[in-house]
Protein backbone atom coordinates (compact mmCIF):
# COMPACT_ATOMS: atom_id res chain seq x y z
CA UNK A 1 0.00 0.00 0.00
CA UNK A 2 1.26 3.44 -0.89
CA UNK A 3 2.27 5.45 2.11
CA UNK A 4 0.88 8.93 2.50
CA UNK A 5 1.44 11.58 5.12
CA UNK A 6 -1.93 13.14 4.33
CA UNK A 7 -3.81 11.66 7.33
CA UNK A 8 -1.36 13.30 9.77
CA UNK A 9 -1.66 16.79 8.31
CA UNK A 10 -5.37 16.46 7.74
CA UNK A 11 -5.91 15.17 11.26
CA UNK A 12 -4.01 18.15 12.71
CA UNK A 13 -6.03 20.43 10.44
CA UNK A 14 -9.35 19.03 11.64
CA UNK A 15 -8.40 18.99 15.33
CA UNK A 16 -6.96 22.51 15.07
CA UNK A 17 -10.02 23.82 13.24
CA UNK A 18 -12.24 22.56 16.04
CA UNK A 19 -10.07 23.90 18.88
CA UNK A 20 -9.62 27.29 17.24
CA UNK A 21 -13.35 27.52 16.44
CA UNK A 22 -14.20 27.09 20.12
CA UNK A 23 -11.56 29.26 21.83
CA UNK A 24 -9.89 31.74 19.43
CA UNK A 25 -12.74 34.28 19.02
CA UNK A 26 -13.00 34.88 22.77
CA UNK A 27 -9.20 35.08 23.08
CA UNK A 28 -9.18 37.71 20.32
CA UNK A 29 -11.88 39.59 22.24
CA UNK A 30 -9.64 39.63 25.32
CA UNK A 31 -6.59 40.87 23.39
CA UNK A 32 -8.84 43.45 21.73
CA UNK A 33 -9.70 44.74 25.20
CA UNK A 34 -6.00 44.86 26.03
CA UNK A 35 -5.27 46.71 22.76
CA UNK A 36 -7.97 49.26 23.65
CA UNK A 37 -6.17 49.97 26.91
CA UNK A 38 -8.56 48.10 29.16
CA UNK A 39 -6.39 45.40 30.70
CA UNK A 40 -8.32 42.28 31.68
CA UNK A 41 -7.21 40.51 34.87
CA UNK A 42 -5.99 37.60 32.76
CA UNK A 43 -3.25 39.82 31.42
CA UNK A 44 -1.61 40.52 34.74
CA UNK A 45 1.82 38.95 34.67
CA UNK A 46 1.31 36.93 37.87
CA UNK A 47 -2.02 35.42 36.75
CA UNK A 48 -0.73 34.28 33.37
CA UNK A 49 2.61 33.11 34.77
CA UNK A 50 0.78 31.10 37.41
CA UNK A 51 -1.41 29.49 34.78
CA UNK A 52 1.54 28.66 32.53
CA UNK A 53 3.60 27.32 35.45
CA UNK A 54 1.11 24.53 36.14
CA UNK A 55 1.53 21.42 34.00
CA UNK A 56 -2.16 21.45 33.02
CA UNK A 57 -1.89 25.10 31.97
CA UNK A 58 1.19 24.25 29.91
CA UNK A 59 -0.68 21.41 28.23
CA UNK A 60 -3.66 23.66 27.39
CA UNK A 61 -1.41 26.44 26.02
CA UNK A 62 0.59 23.93 23.97
CA UNK A 63 -2.57 22.27 22.62
CA UNK A 64 -4.30 25.51 21.61
CA UNK A 65 -1.24 27.12 20.01
CA UNK A 66 0.17 24.07 18.23
CA UNK A 67 -3.17 22.85 16.85
CA UNK A 68 -4.09 26.38 15.68
CA UNK A 69 -0.72 26.62 13.93
CA UNK A 70 -1.08 23.35 12.04
CA UNK A 71 -4.70 24.07 11.18
CA UNK A 72 -3.80 27.46 9.70
CA UNK A 73 -0.72 26.11 7.92
CA UNK A 74 -2.62 23.34 6.16
CA UNK A 75 -5.45 25.64 5.12
CA UNK A 76 -2.96 28.28 3.96
CA UNK A 77 -1.33 25.68 1.69
CA UNK A 78 -4.69 25.14 -0.04
CA UNK A 79 -5.50 28.87 -0.07
CA UNK A 80 -2.22 29.73 -1.79
CA UNK A 81 -3.10 27.19 -4.49
CA UNK A 82 -6.56 28.74 -4.82
CA UNK A 83 -4.98 32.13 -5.45
CA UNK A 84 -3.18 30.70 -8.46
CA UNK A 85 0.22 29.68 -7.10
CA UNK A 86 1.08 26.27 -8.54
CA UNK A 87 4.17 25.35 -6.51
CA UNK A 88 2.70 23.05 -3.90
CA UNK A 89 5.95 21.37 -2.83
CA UNK A 90 7.63 24.69 -2.02
CA UNK A 91 4.50 26.10 -0.42
CA UNK A 92 4.14 22.98 1.73
CA UNK A 93 7.72 23.34 3.01
CA UNK A 94 7.18 27.02 3.81
CA UNK A 95 3.80 26.74 5.59
CA UNK A 96 4.66 23.57 7.53
CA UNK A 97 8.07 25.10 8.27
CA UNK A 98 6.35 28.13 9.82
CA UNK A 99 4.09 25.85 11.86
CA UNK A 100 7.11 23.77 12.94
CA UNK A 101 9.01 26.89 13.99
CA UNK A 102 6.02 28.14 16.00
CA UNK A 103 5.70 24.73 17.65
CA UNK A 104 9.39 24.76 18.61
CA UNK A 105 9.18 28.32 20.00
CA UNK A 106 6.11 27.38 22.07
CA UNK A 107 7.86 24.35 23.58
CA UNK A 108 11.02 26.34 24.38
CA UNK A 109 9.07 29.20 25.99
CA UNK A 110 6.90 26.80 28.01
CA UNK A 111 10.00 25.01 29.31
CA UNK A 112 11.42 28.35 30.48
CA UNK A 113 8.36 29.13 32.58
Amino acid at each position, binding site marked *: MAKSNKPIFWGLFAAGGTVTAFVTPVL*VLLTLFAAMGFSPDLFTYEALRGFAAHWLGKLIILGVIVLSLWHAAHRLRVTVHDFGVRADAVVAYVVYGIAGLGTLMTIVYLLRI
Partner: protein
Amino acid sequence: MSRKPYVREVSKTTWFLSQPRYKRYMAREVTCVFILIYTFLLICALGALAKGPDAFQAFLHALRGPLGVLFNLAALVATVYHSMSWFDVTPQAMPIQRGEEFVPGNVIVGAHYGAWAVVSLIILIWGI
Protein backbone atom coordinates in the same frame (compact mmCIF):
# COMPACT_ATOMS: atom_id res chain seq x y z
CA MET B 1 -5.81 17.39 -38.79
CA SER B 2 -5.81 20.26 -36.44
CA ARG B 3 -8.67 20.84 -34.13
CA LYS B 4 -8.81 23.80 -31.90
CA PRO B 5 -9.06 22.46 -28.37
CA TYR B 6 -11.71 23.92 -26.12
CA VAL B 7 -10.06 26.10 -23.52
CA ARG B 8 -12.15 27.37 -20.68
CA GLU B 9 -11.26 30.93 -19.88
CA VAL B 10 -10.86 30.81 -16.11
CA SER B 11 -8.58 33.19 -14.29
CA LYS B 12 -6.22 31.44 -11.89
CA THR B 13 -6.27 34.31 -9.44
CA THR B 14 -9.79 35.78 -9.59
CA TRP B 15 -11.93 32.72 -10.42
CA PHE B 16 -13.77 32.87 -7.10
CA LEU B 17 -15.27 36.29 -7.84
CA SER B 18 -17.68 34.75 -10.37
CA GLN B 19 -20.05 33.20 -7.82
CA PRO B 20 -21.19 34.14 -4.28
CA ARG B 21 -20.61 30.51 -3.24
CA TYR B 22 -16.96 30.70 -4.29
CA LYS B 23 -16.56 34.04 -2.51
CA ARG B 24 -17.85 32.52 0.72
CA TYR B 25 -15.44 29.62 0.25
CA MET B 26 -12.49 31.97 -0.19
CA ALA B 27 -13.56 34.12 2.76
CA ARG B 28 -13.58 30.95 4.87
CA GLU B 29 -10.14 29.89 3.60
CA VAL B 30 -8.60 33.34 4.17
CA THR B 31 -9.57 33.24 7.86
CA CYS B 32 -6.50 31.00 8.31
CA VAL B 33 -4.19 33.97 7.64
CA PHE B 34 -5.63 35.79 10.65
CA ILE B 35 -5.52 32.65 12.80
CA LEU B 36 -1.86 32.12 11.86
CA ILE B 37 -0.83 35.73 12.60
CA TYR B 38 -2.87 35.78 15.81
CA THR B 39 -1.31 32.51 16.99
CA PHE B 40 2.15 34.04 16.53
CA LEU B 41 0.93 37.00 18.58
CA LEU B 42 0.10 34.49 21.33
CA ILE B 43 3.56 32.93 20.95
CA CYS B 44 5.11 36.41 21.35
CA ALA B 45 3.04 36.88 24.51
CA LEU B 46 4.29 33.52 25.78
CA GLY B 47 7.87 34.49 25.00
CA ALA B 48 7.46 37.76 26.91
CA LEU B 49 5.88 35.84 29.77
CA ALA B 50 8.89 33.52 29.91
CA LYS B 51 11.31 36.47 29.88
CA GLY B 52 9.91 38.38 32.83
CA PRO B 53 7.52 41.11 34.02
CA ASP B 54 9.29 43.91 32.13
CA ALA B 55 9.20 42.07 28.81
CA PHE B 56 5.53 41.26 29.40
CA GLN B 57 4.69 44.92 30.10
CA ALA B 58 6.54 45.86 26.91
CA PHE B 59 4.44 43.33 24.99
CA LEU B 60 1.19 44.78 26.39
CA HIS B 61 2.43 48.27 25.57
CA ALA B 62 3.22 47.29 21.98
CA LEU B 63 -0.24 45.76 21.63
CA ARG B 64 -1.91 49.02 22.63
CA GLY B 65 -2.79 51.53 19.94
CA PRO B 66 -4.74 51.84 16.68
CA LEU B 67 -2.80 49.10 14.88
CA GLY B 68 -3.45 46.59 17.66
CA VAL B 69 -7.14 47.51 17.81
CA LEU B 70 -7.51 47.29 14.03
CA PHE B 71 -5.78 43.92 13.79
CA ASN B 72 -7.76 42.45 16.68
CA LEU B 73 -11.04 43.72 15.20
CA ALA B 74 -10.22 42.14 11.82
CA ALA B 75 -9.11 38.95 13.56
CA LEU B 76 -12.34 38.89 15.57
CA VAL B 77 -14.44 39.04 12.39
CA ALA B 78 -12.28 36.38 10.71
CA THR B 79 -12.25 33.97 13.65
CA VAL B 80 -16.00 34.28 14.27
CA TYR B 81 -16.53 33.60 10.55
CA HIS B 82 -14.26 30.56 10.84
CA SER B 83 -16.16 29.23 13.87
CA MET B 84 -19.55 29.65 12.19
CA SER B 85 -18.42 28.04 8.93
CA TRP B 86 -16.79 25.21 10.91
CA PHE B 87 -19.84 24.46 13.07
CA ASP B 88 -22.31 24.82 10.20
CA VAL B 89 -20.85 21.80 8.38
CA THR B 90 -20.57 19.52 11.43
CA PRO B 91 -23.65 17.42 10.43
CA GLN B 92 -21.87 16.55 7.16
CA ALA B 93 -18.45 16.17 8.79
CA MET B 94 -19.61 13.86 11.58
CA PRO B 95 -23.16 12.56 11.16
CA ILE B 96 -24.46 10.84 14.31
CA GLN B 97 -26.70 7.82 13.98
CA ARG B 98 -29.15 6.79 16.71
CA GLY B 99 -30.66 3.42 15.89
CA GLU B 100 -32.17 3.67 12.40
CA GLU B 101 -32.29 7.46 12.28
CA PHE B 102 -29.64 10.12 11.92
CA VAL B 103 -29.66 12.89 14.50
CA PRO B 104 -31.08 15.99 12.71
CA GLY B 105 -28.43 18.39 11.43
CA ASN B 106 -29.79 21.42 13.26
CA VAL B 107 -29.48 19.57 16.58
CA ILE B 108 -25.76 18.88 15.97
CA VAL B 109 -25.12 22.45 14.79
CA GLY B 110 -27.12 23.86 17.71
CA ALA B 111 -25.17 21.78 20.21
CA HIS B 112 -21.90 23.14 18.81
CA TYR B 113 -23.10 26.76 18.98
CA GLY B 114 -24.29 26.13 22.56
CA ALA B 115 -20.95 24.63 23.59
CA TRP B 116 -19.15 27.52 21.84
CA ALA B 117 -21.19 30.05 23.84
CA VAL B 118 -20.49 28.23 27.13
CA VAL B 119 -16.74 27.91 26.46
CA SER B 120 -16.49 31.57 25.38
CA LEU B 121 -18.41 32.76 28.44
CA ILE B 122 -16.24 30.72 30.83
CA ILE B 123 -13.00 32.06 29.30
CA LEU B 124 -14.40 35.62 29.23
CA ILE B 125 -15.52 35.59 32.87
CA TRP B 126 -12.28 33.92 33.95
CA GLY B 127 -10.23 36.36 31.87
CA ILE B 128 -11.86 39.63 32.95
